[in-house]
């Protein structure tokens, strides 16, 4: 059983963080972030050509996490690989000790930086979860027996602020039925809305980690509200960021993230948090410290 799975099952407040691979082969900044965070969290997600922008692969990043002694959570989207490539990558991941997988649909190709590429989407995220379950039963998706069976801790995502929410929840339930053991949510900021979501989500046998994206400015918050589906930053938080002294907006964002995590932990609103620092990885230890995690 993976260290991350053990943490999920232990009942402790689980913390995961996100690592973004570089555009190219200079792995030093990513290595630094892994070293900075690996002992502070229960798992490190490595993103998969996030936002359809070409990067060093999530598989390579997850392998690096493993080699440095961290606990990788391999993010796997359905955008760039068909079922043959996905299964082959899962074999490779398992053979190298990468046993946690977060299953995602993947953003549309056209929102990224290779707009003319073919979007694959041979599978969707529910089918990817189901396929991983099939592999762990010793068979490939075509029904052929495997020589050596990979077993993964499978996860998925949900967007608690999606509009409309109901169709998302149908899919959320299908992901759990397809074998999702943990859910990392899209960024949440409005804790009242999140409480309502959790009142619903608690009915299911799945661990839920609340998504935390560090805000760096009021402008970023407004931009996300306008442009990122399923993200809602309430006005009081935007005002708080706008009111920060010059050069202190990031500090305010760090405080907001820490405060949010502290409340989630103290009220046991979720089973843990997933911190997506998006370029501000250096601030994660401080956020965890302020949140009273360690």
């Amino acid at each position, binding site marked *: 059983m993976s260290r991350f799975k053990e943490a999920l099952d232990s009942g402790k407040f689980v913390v995961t963080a996100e690592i973004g691979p570089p555009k190219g082969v200079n792995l030093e900044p990513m290595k630094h972030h892994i070293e900075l965070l690996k002992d502070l969290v229960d798992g490190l997600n490595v993103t998969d050509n996030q936002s359809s922008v070409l990067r060093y692969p999530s598989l390579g990043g997850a392998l690096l996490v493993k080699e440095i002694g961290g606990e990788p959570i391999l993010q796997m989207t*359905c*955008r760039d690989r068909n*079922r043959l490539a996905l299964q082959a990558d899962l074999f490779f991941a398992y053979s190298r000790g990468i046993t946690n997988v977060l299953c995602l*649909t*993947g*953003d*549309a190709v*056209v*929102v990224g930086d290779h707009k003319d590429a073919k*979007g694959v*989407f*041979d*599978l*969707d*995220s*529910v*089918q990817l979860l*189901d*396929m991983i379950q099939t592999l762990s039963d010793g068979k490939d*998706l075509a029904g052929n027996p495997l020589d050596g069976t990979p077993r993964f801790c499978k996860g998925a*995502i*949900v*967007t608690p602020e*999606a*509009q*409309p929410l*109901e*169709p*998302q929840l*149908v*899919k959320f*339930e*299908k992901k759990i*039925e*397809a074998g999702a053991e943990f859910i990392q949510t*899209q960024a949440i900021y409005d804790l009242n809305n999140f409480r309502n979501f959790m009142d619903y989500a608690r009915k299911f046998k799945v661990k839920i980690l609340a998504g935390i994206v560090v805000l760096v400015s009021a402008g970023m918050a407004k931009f996300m509200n306008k442009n990122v*589906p*399923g993200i809602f930053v309430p006005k009081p938080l935007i005002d708080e960021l706008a009111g920060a002294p010059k050069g202190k907006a990031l500090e305010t964002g760090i405080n907001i993230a820490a405060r949010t995590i502290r409340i989630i932990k103290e009220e046991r609103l979720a089973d843990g948090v997933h911190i997506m620092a998006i370029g501000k990885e250096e601030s994660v230890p401080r956020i965890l410290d302020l949140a009273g995690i360690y």
Partner: protein
Amino acid sequence: MKTITRQKPFEQILEDISSDTRVFIVGCGTCATLCHTGGVEEVAAMAEKLTVAGKIVTGVAVPPTGCDEVTSEMRYVFRDRLRAADIVLVMSCAFGVQTAATQLKKPVAPALDTLFMGKEGPAGHYSEICMQCGECVLAYTGGICPVTACHKGLLNGPCGGTDNGMCEVGNGRECAWTHIYNRLLSQGRLDRMRQYHPPKSHNAVLRPGILDLTHSREEAAAQ
């Protein structure tokens, strides 16, 4: 169902026929007329532009359908004008271009790009309705095709890019799964959406598609 087309940039057309001087133009009285890409007016406008660009237009024809009325008979009717041409510029869908290539015994060039099989909604607005996947799923999606209408062709519900009923790719695309959810909800059939749908076969139609009705149904299915 119509074949929706868009005219290629004129510079592209000129480049494609750069080695040819004499041009015969074929339009289409059906889909390309509906799309204003290859009807009588567009063919006349193309003839004028080509003439200004230094080409010699040996003749034009706009048959009722470009796909199956560009025949050897047409070759006979326009024989002198066709014979005088170096190339046939076809202002119809790719079907018409290929028919012309076979029937008119002349080199051809397409003046249009074929975009999709679609329907016309409000005048001038076209939308894609079928990808010809060979495994119709409309029974469980309220008659709305997720393979076509969802940008990613998802079968088990919306992705996280859906936003107030719109798709993350923008440009006015709506989220198919929001529509599917609403329709199934209104029909009391949400169980269709809650059901797990396994991956599609992308070879349900072995490409290139061939169907021979002279065989039995079983034999045809086995092809």
